């Protein structure tokens, strides 16, 4: 019997005490994840994109020998060739170098805003489910309110009022994207509360606080990873949109969104400048979707239809 078969068996029979220990739960989930070929491929490509983006300064300096922020005006709008694989932009800057550096910015914004919206979403969701009554109503009203505000209008308003830095922008995007997580965490905590193990804990005399932190939270936490995935996906799309409009990451710092902000000026002279940043966004988002999907199935086999 191979190693993976053993893992699979263990995941099928979670009645043994060992299966409830968190490390073997993680191992079982990892085993399930590895069997999803698309998810694994997505993970590999995403890690590759992230690795290249975050080592961009090294790559551009040592391999491409170009500077993302310095260009020669005599070299502007050069179509892709050996020296500039993705061509040059309106300042004669190397598009590939900018694209790699932009990845660093866009991905960081994705991670950071996901962190912000998770922090807000998970805590509000737990609060709503834990305290119920007016706390639940108040949080629900807040969720409803944010759900009814068209996000981009609010983001643009916040952007022109506060003129945020890259980090500030990530916070603003996170601040407008937590409602989904709140709702899901709330629903999940409420359904967990009706489970036998919670009754057992109550019978043993555990306090509500202990039940929430020691018993319910670990059962919800695996889902948090899934929400994190969706939050990152949402944040990257938001960043691209708002920077495309010119109210996100400010030039000269490159981001995948703001590289497209002058698309209309490029329309006839340099169409290649419109293609590459979009393609990399699509590729990254596609990977993240597959990855998150795979994670969800692996972490919660009950959900799989």
């Amino acid at each position, binding site marked *: 019997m191979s190693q993976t078969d053993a893992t699979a068996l263990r995941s099928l029979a979670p009645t043994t005490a060992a299966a409830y220990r968190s490390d073997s739960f993680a191992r079982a989930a990892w085993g399930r994840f590895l069997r999803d070929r698309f998810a694994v491929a997505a993970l590999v490509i995403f890690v590759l994109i992230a690795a290249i983006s975050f080592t961009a300064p090294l790559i551009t300096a040592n391999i491409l020998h170009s500077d993302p922020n310095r260009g020669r005006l005599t070299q502007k709008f050069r179509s892709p060739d050996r020296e500039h694989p993705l061509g040059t932009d309106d300042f004669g800057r190397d598009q590939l170098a900018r694209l790699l550096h932009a990845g660093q910015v866009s991905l960081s914004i994705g991670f950071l805003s996901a962190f912000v919206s998770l922090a807000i979403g998970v805590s509000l969701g737990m609060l709503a489910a834990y305290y119920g009554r007016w706390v639940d109503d108040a949080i629900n009203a807040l969720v409803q309110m944010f759900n009814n505000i*068209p996000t981009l*209008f*609010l983001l*643009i308003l916040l952007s022109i009022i506060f003129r945020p830095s890259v980090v500030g922008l990530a916070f603003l995007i996170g601040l407008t994207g937590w409602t989904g997580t709140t709702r899901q965490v709330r629903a999940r905590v409420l359904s967990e509360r009706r489970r036998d193990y919670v009754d057992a804990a109550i019978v043993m005399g555990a306090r509500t606080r202990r039940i929430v932190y020691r018993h319910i939270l670990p059962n919800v936490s695996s889902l948090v990873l899934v929400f994190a995935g969706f939050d990152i*996906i949402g944040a990257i*799309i938001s960043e691209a949109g708002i920077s*495309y409009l010119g109210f996100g990451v400010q030039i000269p710092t490159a981001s995948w969104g703001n590289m497209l902000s002058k698309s209309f000026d490029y329309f006839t002279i340099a169409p290649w400048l419109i293609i590459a940043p979009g393609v990399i966004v699509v590729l990254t988002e596609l990977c993240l979707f597959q990855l998150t999907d795979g994670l969800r199935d692996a972490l919660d086999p009950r959900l799989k239809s």
Partner: protein
Amino acid sequence: MGRFIVRRFFQSCLLLLGVATMSFSLIHLAPGGPEVFNEDPRLPREYAQQQRADFGLDKPLPVQYVIWLGQAARLNFGRSFVDKRPVTDKIFERVPNTFLLAGSSLLLGFLGVPLGVLAALRRGRSFDHATRFFTALGNATPHWWLGLIILLVSARTVHWFPLAGTQTIGDGSLLDRLHHLLLPALLGAIGGWIGYSRLVRSEFLEVSTQDFVRTARAKGLPERSVIVRHTLRNALLPVVTSLGGLLTVVLSGSLLFETTFSWPGIGRLAYEAAQQRDYPVVMALTIFTAALSILGNFFVDIAYTFVDPRVQYE
């Protein structure tokens, strides 16, 4: 039923009050304070004095709050910094264009329903996999960028789509207008296609396992009738519920599509105003679109009580 409508109406008013309160706080949290929204070198000095009197900016904060709410209820959001016209006038003249585009997108979005039904009927077959693949691709792609690419390709080869605006100058025929509407409306509908096809598919599969579907089959109804009258009708319920959320998304997306296609609606107005730091216009637009979305969700919820009589409201 009547009580539910009244209750839901008050809820909507409260939500609106919440949005207004948030906007008021933003005005006061802004670096530079509320003056930022009233004073601008592009406007005459007397205007700022007038605003200060109208909005009671020398009074304590709670009083200012009440005055501001009163002015907002009268749709007074000040004047645009750029052309000195009342903000509300600028918004209302753009609204019909946005309604046309957003409405077309919402309508076209319903094409996702048959897609979902077909995917459910051919579950596990190639059509199902194909819709799944295109859903994933559609989710991963910024739709405005797809619009740029289609425009780019069209402009270089087939010239199918006009590049910008609602009509060719000097040609106001219906056909020409529809021609300009087509691409932005289709792009705005992608969200609906993705959302509805997935939703209807899973709901359809869920409903097909219900007892009443088995009963319908057992009593010998033709398969067509089982699918359309028994399964589909019930599978369509969540489509009504999700319409409200989709409205908000389409409104938000109007900023990107209207900017990309130079479509003179409120999304484009927000873009132009934000570029010129025309704070009162952007502020008013945020409140206005939120109000539209709250109103839309109100009607969707009312409609739902008619569609699904099983729902009971306390």
